[in-house]
């Protein structure tokens, strides 16, 4: 790993994380760690059927007051969810089932007891009477005439059908090279190691409902909870304590969370539900399941001309509040041109309801699928034309001089050098040496392959972009409050939610840089609606752009005021002062920020005439450019594949990436490595298959394969640093990028290993079975 860190400043410093200490002592506070007197544990009764008419819920004798159905929680509003588009069909998702059951795992009733075990015992005795219906388990078949309907009032099973068109695809009808391929990225869970969790109680002193929630965005969740419960927002406090990973999966308001909050209101005592792993795998946010059928058009030199196709998103049974999974389809379609110059795009998308757990965001949102489809198709095209995939990419990548470049998908690629990133990784893995090794062959019979993928990652996109997507909540800004305490130390109150991203460190670095203090003097507070001004939370690689910008802007307001006070105390003009190392310097003296803060807070007689006391400011921030700032990178991976068993080993993994200015390169590397590890999970291991009757077939870590240390190779990372134009310090968001490219790069490497036999690898995860079947099929050993 290399990083060009400017250690002169806190911006770019590899500062060790402020949040590590509590975790290393085992002293962190996750929702399940909160202890309350008279706490009741909840166990949910869940649907065992994928699709059924609910007839009755029979409570066990004598347990009427410990078992609750939807009717018992009344009044409870069912929230509208999904984009605010008339064409998007509503799929009311009650906190506990009403009328119909639409996926295995859907909450039907809730039971309380003094322990989870006792609550589960009770749940086992609840009888759910239901009439089973045919299940819809395939998103493509779901749209065929005669398919059973999830929602009786819908004309078919699609939440929405939508087209994305640019240029004139019909003009390519005679294009000399055309290849058509089908790709599939299968369904996953998001698998934060801490599952979901919620604890709610009525705080009589403050006369409010307190909801501890393992969430990525407490302020936004308060909006939804308040509406569902019918509570005014000043009577509802949402607190995200330590959150054990989210990856997108904790950025939706889920039925269990509403039900637990409602029950706390009803029982007026603390109630909690802590998700177990089985519940997480069958009933938490699911992700990824995309089907692609695309045709790529090129000329005889391998210049890409356009792409047409059809995308089916298997969205599961309901749209989750607030925005459902509609963005999957539009983002998939708009990212299909990838980082390439092509001017014609015609994609039809279908966001389809099936009898599976509802889909939500997961690290990369839609782009891992789109990147898999376009980057696999580019390799297939290169194979077809007898070209090196690397060369075909070089001919088509958007170059630095093209920028800003508006893609056929309407994305404004702002800055960077994509061809250079590709060259860097090609050098790192030494392609000529690999080609020689392939020609020699391996002693153990394995095949060696090298694959590439180039990705872009939109980050820091603001109001215009989210409004265009018809988002119900428009996360176009972030706010910060900077409060300098009387001794000159600082509280930084922010609306984002740190759950592993190191924002308690990086935001302190930004504040330290602006205020010329040490990060140790700055405490970052977040994750609590009663602490910070409104914010949207941490998702979509947005926090460093928006919250970092808000912190910078607000610190400058505080510092300017401090400088005015300093000038007054030094009996000089503001213009004659400067600030360094926490001290305001004048021509003939200096005064520390601590002395200034003391004057501003508790010794008002020292302030300039008419100045208001205190050193505190609140401001919101959004970049002027609303279309986002694109991080990007190239991944190169070398694999060895055993042809008979299909077992894939990763021999080398190289990354060249550019996220603009890095606030903390240590944390940037951590995000990349962690993202790639999840991407390797998507590529090779993780899948939630469903049986024909809609039963989920991966319900434990015994059958849902999460990569562990032996499966993840050491990664080699090079940073290109092209500062963004239009963000503070030139930062770009980068939390998701690592997860986008691995499925494409790894599948391309496997395909490269079997290029001579023409084996096709078009579906993730590339399990040993899928790989060995593809090889056998290409070799004529399978029908």
């Amino acid at each position, binding site marked *: 790993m290399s990083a060009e860190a400017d250690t002169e400043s806190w911006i770019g410093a590899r500062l*060790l994380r402020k949040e*590590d200490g509590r975790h290393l002592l085992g002293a962190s506070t996750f929702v399940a760690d909160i202890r309350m007197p008279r706490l009741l544990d909840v166990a949910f009764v869940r649907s065992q059927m994928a699709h059924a008419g609910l007839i009755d819920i029979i409570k066990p004798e004598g347990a009427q007051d410990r078992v609750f159905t939807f009717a018992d929680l009344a009044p409870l509003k069912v929230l509208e969810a999904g984009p605010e588009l008339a064409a998007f069909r509503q799929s009311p998702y009650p906190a506990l089932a009403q009328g119909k059951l639409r996926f295995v795992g859907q909450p039907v009733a809730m039971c309380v007891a003094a*322990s989870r075990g006792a609550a589960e015992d009770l749940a086992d005795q609840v009888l759910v009477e239901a009439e089973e219906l045919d299940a819809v388990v395939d998103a493509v078949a779901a749209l065929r005439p005669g398919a059973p309907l999830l929602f009786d009032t819908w004309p078919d099973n699609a939440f929405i059908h939508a087209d994305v068109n640019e240029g004139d695809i019909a003009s390519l009808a005679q294009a000399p090279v055309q290849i058509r391929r089908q790709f599939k990225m299968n369904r996953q869970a998001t698998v934060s*190691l801490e599952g979901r969790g919620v604890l709610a109680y009525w705080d009589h002193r403050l006369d409010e409902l307190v909801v501890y929630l393992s969430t990525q965005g407490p302020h936004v969740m308060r909006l939804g909870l308040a509406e569902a419960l019918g509570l005014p927002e000043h009577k509802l406090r949402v607190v995200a304590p330590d959150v054990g990973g989210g990856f997108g999966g904790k950025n939706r308001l889920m039925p269990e969370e509403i039900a637990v909050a409602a029950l706390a209101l009803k029982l007026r005592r603390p109630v909690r539900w802590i998700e177990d792993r089985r519940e997480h795998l069958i009933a938490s946010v699911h992700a990824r399941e995309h089907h692609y059928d695309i045709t790529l058009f090129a000329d005889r030199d391998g210049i890409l001309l356009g792409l047409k196709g059809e995308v089916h998103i298997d969205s599961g049974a309901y749209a989750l509040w607030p925005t459902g999974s509609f963005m999957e389809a539009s983002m998939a379609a708009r990212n299909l041109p990838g980082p390439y110059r092509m001017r014609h795009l015609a994609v039809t998308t279908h966001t389809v309801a099936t009898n599976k757990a509802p889909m939500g965001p997961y690290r990369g949102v839609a782009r891992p699928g789109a990147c898999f489809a376009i980057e696999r198709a580019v390799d297939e095209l290169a194979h077809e034309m007898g070209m090196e995939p690397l060369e075909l990419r070089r001919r088509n990548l958007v170059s630095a001089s093209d920028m800003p470049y508006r893609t056929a998908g309407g994305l404004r690629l702002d800055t960077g050098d994509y061809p250079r990133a590709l060259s860097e990784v090609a050098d790192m893995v030494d392609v000529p040496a690999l080609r020689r090794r392939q020609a020699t062959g391996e002693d153990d019979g394995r095949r060696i392959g090298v694959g590439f993928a180039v990705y872009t990652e939109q980050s820091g996109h603001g109001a215009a972009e989210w409004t265009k997507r018809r988002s119900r909540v428009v996360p176009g800004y972030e706010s910060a409050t900077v409060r300098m305490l009387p001794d000159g130390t600082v509280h930084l109150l922010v609306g984002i939610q740190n759950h592993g991203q190191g924002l308690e460190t990086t935001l302190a670095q930004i504040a330290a840089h602006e205020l010329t203090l040490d990060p140790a003097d700055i405490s970052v507070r977040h994750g609590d609606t009663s602490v910070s001004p409104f914010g949207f939370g941490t998702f979509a690689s947005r926090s460093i752009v928006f919250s970092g910008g808000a912190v910078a802007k607000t610190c400058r307001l505080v510092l300017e005021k401090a400088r005015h006070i300093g000038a007054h105390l030094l009996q000089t003009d503001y213009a004659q002062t400067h600030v360094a190392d926490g001290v305001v310097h004048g021509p003939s003296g200096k005064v520390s920020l601590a002395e200034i803060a003391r004057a501003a807070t508790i010794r008002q007689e020292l302030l300039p005439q008419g100045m208001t006391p205190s050193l505190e400011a609140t401001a919101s921030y959004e970049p002027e450019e609303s279309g986002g700032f694109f991080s990007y990178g190239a991944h190169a991976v070398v694999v060895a594949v055993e042809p008979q068993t299909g077992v894939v080993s990763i021999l080398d993994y190289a990354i060249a990436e550019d996220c603009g200015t890095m606030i903390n390169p240590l944390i940037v590397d951590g995000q990349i490595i962690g993202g790639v590890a999840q991407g390797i999970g998507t590529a090779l291991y993780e899948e939630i298959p469903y049986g024909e009757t809609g039963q989920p077939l991966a319900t434990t870590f015994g059958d849902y394969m999460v990569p562990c240390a032996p499966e993840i190779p050491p990664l080699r990372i090079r940073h290109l640093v092209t500062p963004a134009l239009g963000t503070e310090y030139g930062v770009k968001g980068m939390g998701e990028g690592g997860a986008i490219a691995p499925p494409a790069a790894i599948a391309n490497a496997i395909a490269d290993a079997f290029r001579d036999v023409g084996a096709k690898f078009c579906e993730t995860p590339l399990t040993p079975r899928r790989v060995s079947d593809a090889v056998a099929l290409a070799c004529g050993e399978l029908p």
Partner: protein
Amino acid sequence: MMSITLMLNGEETVQSVEPRAILADLLREGCGLTGTHLGCEHGACGACTVALDGMAVRACVVLAVMCDGRTVETIEGTRGDPVMDVIRRHFHEHHALQCGFCTPGMLMMARDIIARHPCPDEALIRAQLSGQVCRCTGYMGIVAAIRAAAAELHPEAAARPTLTRNA
């Protein structure tokens, strides 16, 4: 309910437990030791790793009653343990944690690995971690931290030439 006596983090404690209760629930709910985290409750993720009579075990698949008369050490019991403090420092310096949920279990396993293998190489560490899930870090920092901690704790072993291990 059954009464059991165990030596927990250096103190003798008497607890009343259901025969079906797992050690992790006893620690978390009965003893207030919430540093032992539950990530899967079926013995697959390692987040609840504790030391039972000095051996690393998963507290979610050990029944509490099986600990009667035995010694249990949780992450809370390692505060002030000079070996664990070295491991902790290397976890911090190698960015071996992000959300922190797997961290207590990782640390307990790391100490166990170093106790059994004074000079573990990368392949051995990775293999030894095959039952510990970290969803955030991609393991690179964890592996590097364990290696560096072992080298600091056992400089004599680190100085000895070792046979190369196969992955």
